């Protein structure tokens, strides 16, 4: 055992396997949560039969169903690109998990450029979406892919700018470093040192901008024009079926987890909770915060209609980016002055 843990390469392999397993499980859990939460919001019951009373095996059953389906590639499609596109999307999401800190030690690799790496890896998915839309040889898919690419590019900027404020305030780009910076006491109430997560330390606007931009990056309603089901069938996903569709699907839900994890680390304090030991309770604390944000994302999907493409773009360029820039300026001023 220690031999594996000592050797760098075997440890890395173990971590990668672990994180892949975590990602798959987490995706299934979030899918189930979405089915149940949306059902109760709509006065329905949701999955009921699969796996006993609560229908918890529904996502598993769906996954197994998809895996045994026929592998369809449209005749006119560009075969290599078509087959490779879902892997690109999945790889991009998986890469983000590398820097998510579950506790000060439980992180695949605590890069010094953690935040930068996360944002860069997260945008690999855009290329995959374009590949999917183009290679499907279907006008609907093409339109969906182009819409998705435009949307993803437009919302990268607010995402990055919102994070810059946190980086300025923390003084470091490493994810563990940012959590430690939030754990540092802000003021003292008698004997106890009070520390606040960044959302309360002045990054509230940044948090809002980040969540909105994250919704757009994940192609979730109100920003799900690219897969607007009632308009373009499934947009860039129209021609995908079976395992390839499952890969996109899992990638989307893993992305929800990844974005929520980044948001909780940057804005909500990550694995730190005042009074609890980070090393032992860290993962639980982080999961709790991630769960809150995931619930918020699911809630928004089932409440709001979707924005039209041009409204989406004007919202990003005319509102979010100027707001994010103002946020940076204010944060920088405060950092220097105080």
């Amino acid at each position, binding site marked *: 055992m220690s031999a594996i843990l000592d050797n760098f390469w075997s440890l890395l392999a173990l971590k990668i396997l672990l994180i892949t397993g975590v990602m798959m499980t987490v995706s299934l859990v979030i899918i189930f949560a979405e089915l149940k939460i949306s059902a109760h919001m*709509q006065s329905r019951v949701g999955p009921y039969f699969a796996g006993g009373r609560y229908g918890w095996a529904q996502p598993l059953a769906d996954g197994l169903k998809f895996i045994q389906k026929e592998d369809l590639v449209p005749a006119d499609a560009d075969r290599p690109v078509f087959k490779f596109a879902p892997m690109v999307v999945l790889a991009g999401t998986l890469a983000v998990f590398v820097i998510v800190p579950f506790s000060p030690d439980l992180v695949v690799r605590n890069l010094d450029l953690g935040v930068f790496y996360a944002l860069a890896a997260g945008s690999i998915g855009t290329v995959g979406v374009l590949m999917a839309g183009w290679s499907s040889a279907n*006008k609907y898919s093409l*339109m969906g892919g182009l819409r998705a690419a435009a949307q993803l590019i437009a919302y990268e900027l607010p995402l990055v700018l919102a994070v810059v404020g946190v980086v300025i305030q923390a003084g470091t780009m490493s994810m563990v470093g940012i959590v430690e910076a939030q754990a540092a006491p802000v003021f003292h109430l008698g004997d106890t040192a009070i520390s606040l997560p960044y959302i309360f330390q002045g990054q509230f606007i940044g948090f809002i901008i980040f969540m909105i931009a994250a919704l757009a990056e994940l192609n979730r309603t109100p920003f*799900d024009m690219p897969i607007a089901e*009632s*308009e373009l069938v499934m947009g860039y996903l129209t021609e995908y079926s079976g395992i390839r569709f499952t890969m996109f699907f899992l990638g989307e839900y893993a992305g929800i987890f990844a974005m929520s994890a980044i948001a909780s680390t940057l804005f909500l304090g990550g694995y730190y909770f005042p009074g609890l030991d980070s090393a032992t309770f860290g993962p639980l604390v982080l999961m709790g915060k991630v769960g809150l944000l995931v619930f918020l994302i699911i809630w928004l999907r089932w409440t709001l*209609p979707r924005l039209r493409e041009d409204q989406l773009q004007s919202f990003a360029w005319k509102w979010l980016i100027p707001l994010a820039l103002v946020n940076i300026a204010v944060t920088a001023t405060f950092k220097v002055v105080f």
Partner: protein
Amino acid sequence: MTTADRQTLSMHHSEVQVSVELQTPDMTLNLGPQHPSTHGVLRLVARVDGEVIKELEPVVGYMHRGYEKLAEVRTYPQITALVNRIDWVSGFANEIPFMVATERLMDIEVPERAQYIRLILTEMARISNHLVFLSSLPLELGAATPLMHALRERERVLDLIEGVTGGRFHPNFNRIGGVKPAAAAGATQKKVVQDLPQGFVEQTKSAMEYVREVCADMVNLVLGNEIFMQRTKGVGVIPADKALAFGVSGPNLRASGVPFDLRKTDDYLPYSNFDFDVVTGSNGDCFDRYAVRLEEVVQASRIVDQAVSEIPAGDLQAKVPRIIKVPKGEIYVRAENPKGEMGYYIVSEGGRGPYRLKIRTASFSNLSVLSWLLKGQLVPDLIAILGSLDFVLGDVDR
């Protein structure tokens, strides 16, 4: 099928020409006949440049069942069963103008009780129809939850209709001279005079309470939603004069600002005994069409409340001969159906069936405005506009 049908949808990369100004060819987008958001088998052939529609032509007729020809080989009572399948969402209301036309030609006076029951069921059909519309437009725009809430309340109304007539959508409850008076007579079963079920009045009143509650929810959840407003305000404006020239009727016409309601102008049912408002919009855009129908549900529930409290006693059907033979004559009767104006022009030559029956349906005229309306609109707006016109293909194609 025409050559247009055989156009393939794939676009080979060699077809795109890159010149100095990057000309991209117009794309012919074929929506339908099977499509998640068109209300039935409607095909739209659109020439699209990016996201802007340059030209659009609706192709209808996939559901043409030949009602007018069929009516020539049916007797009048048999046509009643045919006719409520034209607009299948508001089943009961389709029969009313036909019944009234036949009764006027035969000079039959319908008992008051039957008229009140007809009116109550028509208004319930209106509520049911509008609730479907109120839930499907937000669904097409992306909000999935109002669908569930509206359909839940619609179940109450459908249960009421089923309690009275035995059918939810195609009741076949009207008879020439009134409504169905009796049930089950024959070799094994005794004939029973069938009147309204017990407890009908209380159940109706409580159902109307629930309906009004869900309308109040919709006002907050949908009408007040910023994104919904952005998607529908100013989209698909039909000016009043164009609406009249194309024959647009019903809530679509009222949303364009024309306060025209056949329930107030024609006396095919005793609407003059009840107090209700004619709901109009101001701009004629998708938002107004939604708001008008939302308010119409509330008004319809008011009518039902008033009518159900004062149903007079009496017969359910007038005395009519065993074989219905309508004297010679021609008549046109129109009614305010949930989707618009529905009318029947009956040409009778004294036989047991009509010589010619012309059915004027609301959705046919409502849809004809589409090729004028959609020039220059965006593709996502197309979905919002189609959803806001509230048509059903059975009504368009007959």
